[in-house]
């Protein structure tokens, strides 16, 4: 288990965090390679289905990152998203997913340092929890 590395799905807003990832790369910053980034147009586009699908298909952690409040490219997408995320996070933890598996952040395109540090933070939080025990979908088989 010592060698185990978590797989984390990162949903990153095109207008900020995705740019921060670019900048972090250009700046040769070091951060763990565990996050598979998926570019989304805005955190307002995040559907709960995306997060659930990632968890169902075996993601050890999910991270959603968008623009700081007030900085949304579409003016208010992240404000709406913030409410959806709050309820979502509470519900999924209420149903027995560990609190450290789902993360949210606001990272502007200039904040490459915050990007790298958040990746580290998210990765180590997920890593600390170990592999998922429940809720990963396998093809269903019944042989009765």
């Amino acid at each position, binding site marked *: 288990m010592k060698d185990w590395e978590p797989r984390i799905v990162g949903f990153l807003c095109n207008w900020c965090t995705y740019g921060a990832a670019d900048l972090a790369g250009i700046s040769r910053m070091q951060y763990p390679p565990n996050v598979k980034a998926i570019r989304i147009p805005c955190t307002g586009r995040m559907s*709960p*289905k995306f997060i*659930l*699908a990632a968890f*169902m298909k075996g993601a050890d952690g999910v991270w959603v990152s968008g623009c700081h*409040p*007030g900085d949304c490219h579409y003016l*208010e997408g992240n*404000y*709406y998203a*913030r*409410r*959806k*995320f*709050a*309820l*979502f*996070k*509470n*519900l*999924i*933890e*209420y*149903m*027995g*997913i*560990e*609190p450290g598996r789902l*993360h*949210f*952040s*606001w990272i502007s395109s200039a904040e490459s340092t915050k990007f790298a540090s*958040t990746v580290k*933070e998210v990765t180590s939080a997920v890593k600390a929890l170990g592999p998922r*025990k*429940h*809720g*990963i*979908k396998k093809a*269903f088989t019944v042989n009765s």
Partner: protein
Amino acid sequence: MSDYTAKIKEISARLLKEEKVEMVIGFRKGTVPMMNEPCFVKTPEDVKELVWDSNCGINLANYLTDRKEKIGIIAKGCDSRNIVTHIIENKVKREQLLIIGVPCKGMIDKNKITSMFENEINEVLEDEENIIVKGKVFEKTLNKNDVLQENCKICIHRNPVISDELAADLLDEQKDIDRYEDVRKIEAMATEDKWKYFEDLLSPCIRCYACRNACPLCYCPTCFVDESRPQWVGKSLDPTDTRTFHFLRAYHCAGRCTDCGACERACPMGIKVRMFTKKLEKDCLELYGWEAGLSLDERPPLDTYRPNDPEDFIK
């Protein structure tokens, strides 16, 4: 309850006769104990079918979705809140409706009463305070308040929040109710126990979708469980799929659920599906001070925001 029924009939007959509505949606007497059937009547002569008693737990707002007629609708507190939600969400227009409000003393829990008796129940009668349960070889009187549906016991909006007519005098609302004791109990559990709790809760689920379909909030033209590209949820009895279904069903009701209990009442397997929606209801109240369906002038919590909404969970 007979005075309720008489008044409902009287109002319905009048509305139909004066052609203020084309139909009245209400309940008619069921064919089995503790069940009534939602129905419509279109002529003053037919209003004799209508009844009101403690078995009218189905939420009639469900029957308004996308209807175009002028409708008279019988509405208890929770129904009226879902009618408000329907109007806000453009599923029906206020002008189409004549709401016959019924101050509600609570609906009885069919599953609970059934499980109290070894033998089949053949008849259930009621008066103001009591429920009289009769079988072939037994008869027992129960205190109605002891056998109310869970959601009715903790209801704080028994009176219709919106109505054009009233079938009875308004009731005093229940005070000092702790609505979320059971939710807090789960919140306090360890993660693993939470997982186990819901695993056990959902293990009898047969994916019949009665909970979804009994809910007036569930009217998406294509439900996410029916989407095929991509297919978000598998169709088998896989527990992960079942859990995902219940999660999303509840989440779709976030900020809209009135805890009418129709989902739980409809479940043929007796699953407490309100355990999901109640958590969201609690959070909406605590985070956004929101109770669904109380006002036509406010947007539901996920359709609005405040710049200073809580965000301590965000890095």
